[in-house]
């Protein structure tokens, strides 16, 4: 490789490779474990009554950060059950826009299933997008146990 070829490699290919590996490495981080405990204090009206059927987290329970973007993206969401009861239903909705780029959709509760569903869309880097979780279907007919699921958020370039 002569001197000209080396210069071509350094001045053209290397920056391109660098750009392709750095600028397009989209990333999502989620924070928001929600451990919920249900006991006698959750009875609707004390002794003789059933349990409240619905429980909501704080509106800022989940915080999502999208970075390394190069334009528009979509966030999908699903859950994977570890131990679950068929009466229980878990929901999520977006409650905040974060800062920076733009975010839209996802502000109405949607039930989480075991397959990816579109949650919300946006563009550019956006930190601090908040979300809220809701559990429904609770009653005394759900046997005492610890029911767990992992919630997956996937960001996709679009």
């Amino acid at each position: 490789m002569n001197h000209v070829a080396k210069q071509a490699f350094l001045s053209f290919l290397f920056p391109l490779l660098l750009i392709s590996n750095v600028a397009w490495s989209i990333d999502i981080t989620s924070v928001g474990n929600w451990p919920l405990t249900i006991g006698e204090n959750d009875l609707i009206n004390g002794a003789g009554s059933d349990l409240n059927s619905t429980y909501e987290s704080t509106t800022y329970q989940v915080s999502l950060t999208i970075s390394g973007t190069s334009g528009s993206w979509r966030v999908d969401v699903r859950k994977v059950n570890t131990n679950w009861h068929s009466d229980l239903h878990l929901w999520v909705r977006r409650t905040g826009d974060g800062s920076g780029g733009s975010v839209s959709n996802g502000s109405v509760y949607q039930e989480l299933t075991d397959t990816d569903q579109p949650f919300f869309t946006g563009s550019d880097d956006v930190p601090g997008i908040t979300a809220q979780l809701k559990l429904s279907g609770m009653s005394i007919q759900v046997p005492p146990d610890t029911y767990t699921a992992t919630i997956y958020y996937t960001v996709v370039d679009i």
Partner: protein
Amino acid sequence: MRKLLLASLMVAVLAFGVAAATTDSDTHSFSVDIEEMAVLDCTDAPGTLSLTQPAAGGAEPAPVTDATAYIQYTIVLGSEITKEIQARISDGTLPVGCTLTLSANAALYEGTDTVEPITLSGTALDLITLIPTCATGTVADTDGAVLTYSLSVEALTGTAADSTVVKNTSNQITIEFTLADTA
């Protein structure tokens, strides 16, 4: 030189193409811990039970009953099979020569009543047994198991022992109900 540039460009475009389709995922957990529950509540206390003189001379005073109080409960069972409710006198004493009995009428699927009323004393006795996971409801005077109290004079024998029945005494009795695992 041209070959080198072309090859380099292809590699770069390939790398670019692969990277542009990128996605990324992250997770957090959710867990709900449902505890076992066993809570009960008594609605109204029964009214005053007053023994009055019999209508006919020679007869014993008729027992007096009250069925206005209810016991309401919520049970969420874990590893236990069933629960039971026991009752006892926890405070106060009955007038000498008198007996206080109690029975409960639980609805279907909210436990099994004792066959006969239990005679209340300081010792806890089973009142409702085999209670499954249930919630009786909380509406006053309709939901739950109705409690029937009956105060009577112990059988008079026509002996000196009869004189131990003390008239004109007024005692306040506290009844304690306990939810326990089925023995």
